[in-house]
């Protein structure tokens, strides 16, 4: 079922009839993405949800420019995506910070690659560290920071590039439940402060309902994206409230109904 989002002109990201087929000698052809149509407005917070192996990372890697589609279009600001770059910043699940640099330098290195002058780099890096609540850790080596703090540095590094889209692939998967809850609140605050455009990948219903303005669901080998849900619940959202539970249930039903359909198709 294609996205029924209207094609407004301020779409910053657009995928049209996107396909990705992996060909391997032993497994043959594996069509992971099929006819994906997807659009995002500037400043939107979209959560991409689906079971393991349905192709979430594959889609995100194509948008990041790390991978290429086998057919269809992927456009950022109307231009086809050609390789990775700072306009599509990714926050990795394993943080991927440079261990030989401290927190500030980890942010500056990206700005340096943009050829920003040194003084301005430092000032910008400190500003973004402050934004993620790590001002006092600026000079600490990153390997001495906790997982949650490292992920904040990684978010600051991505945001400092002022990307057109911020891509987050299960960014909090390696954190414990408490740190994750804190990071959820922090991310919503940061998103509001920066008006960043975010795609957030997860397979947690709770994470999706807490964060998303719009949740897009994927199921394995389904044609296109299987459904989407707008969440207008006011923020801050309370994961223990009945409204939250109700939205979560709707999302769950939306995903599982497609899963059972798929099973039925396979059974024929």
């Amino acid at each position, binding site marked *: 079922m294609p996205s029924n989002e209207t094609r407004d002109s301020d779409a910053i990201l657009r995928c049209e009839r996107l396909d990705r087929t992996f060909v391997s000698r032993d497994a043959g052809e594996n069509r992971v993405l099929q006819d994906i149509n997807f659009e995002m407005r500037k400043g939107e917070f979209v959560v991409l949800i689906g079971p393991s192996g349905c192709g979430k990372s594959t889609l995100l890697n194509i948008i*990041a420019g*790390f991978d290429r589609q086998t057919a269809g279009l992927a456009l950022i600001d109307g231009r086809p995506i050609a*390789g*990775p*770059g*700072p306009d*599509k*910043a*990714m926050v*990795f699940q*394993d943080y*991927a910070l*440079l*261990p*030989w640099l401290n927190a500030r330098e980890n942010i500056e*290195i*990206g700005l*340096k*690659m*943009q050829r920003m002058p040194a003084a301005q780099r430092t000032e910008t890096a400190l500003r973004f560290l402050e934004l993620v609540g790590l001002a006092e850790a600026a000079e600490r*080596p990153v*390997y*001495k920071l906790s997982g949650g703090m490292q992920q904040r540095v990684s978010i600051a*590094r991505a945001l400092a*590039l002022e990307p057109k889209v911020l891509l987050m692939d299960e960014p909090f998967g390696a954190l414990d439940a408490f740190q994750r809850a804190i990071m959820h609140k922090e991310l919503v605050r940061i998103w509001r402060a920066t008006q960043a455009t975010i795609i957030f990948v997860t397979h947690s219903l709770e994470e999706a309902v807490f964060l998303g303005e719009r949740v897009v669901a994927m199921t394995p080998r389904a044609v296109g994206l299987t459904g989407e849900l707008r969440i207008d619940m006011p923020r801050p959202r309370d994961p223990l409230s009945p409204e939250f539970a109700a939205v979560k249930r709707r999302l769950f039903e939306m995903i599982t109904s497609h899963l059972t359909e798929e099973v039925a198709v396979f059974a024929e």
Partner: protein
Amino acid sequence: MSMKSADAALRATAPARAAAPVRTLARPSLLASLAPALLGLVVPGAFLVLWWGVVAAGVFPPSVLPSPFTVAAAAFDWAFGDPQNGGYSGTLAQAIWASGQRVLLGYAIAMVLGVAIGVPTGASRLMGHLVDPFIHLLRPIPVTAWVPLSLVFFGFGFKGAVFLVALGSFFPIVVNTIEGVRGANRSLVKVGRMLGARGWRLLWYFILPASLPSVFVGLRLGMGISWELIIVAEMMSVKSGIGYTLLDAYSFGRFDVVIAAMIVLGVMGFLSDRVIVAVQSVALRWHREVSIHAEQ
């Protein structure tokens, strides 16, 4: 948290166990911190005693197996004796300088070439296809098999020795540099490309730092091999240095000097390895810490 408040916390949560003695973390005593070093001396000490015992029991003629004391005396004379006395007296410094010079130059050449060839070979697929097979074909040839060619091209003396040292230590350095660059953490390379780094900047700021731990492995292996090869070179084709002294002493039946020369070689190898480790621990502080963290 001080021990006292930790105790208090324990008592608060487990009143039933409050009476039981609380195990405290004692500060390691001086003796305890010296213990590993002392333990390390036990086996060598036992070995010396055994050696001395074998000699005292007259298992071998003393001309073939001198006692530890004879060797110590020979080493002392080699190091501090009056050169006017002739023989080996007072020539140790000269021998170390002669060998050390060749090792340093040969090793430096190997390091420069190993890194200069290893980095592009690891970084570029084309270079890899071009250079890899050649390196892996040459590598299994024992360096000692190069001696005849080395004699033809470089003659007896300094150049030939430097050539053999450079050749032997080149291989571990180049192979580990290639591996390090090729295996530079995938996600860090991804990050570099995402941050907009291409070409040289990607190599310099992301791939090279990530490959350093592996490069240092090569540097250490290379240094070990250098000391091995300098002895081979000096035995075969050079008329000075520790290796030459060793062979010369053997031909005169001076086994006390032979053993002293072996010990000097061990010490030189050990010291040069320590130098590299010291440089490494400064350059790769992050790496040590990261590995320590990963172990937890």
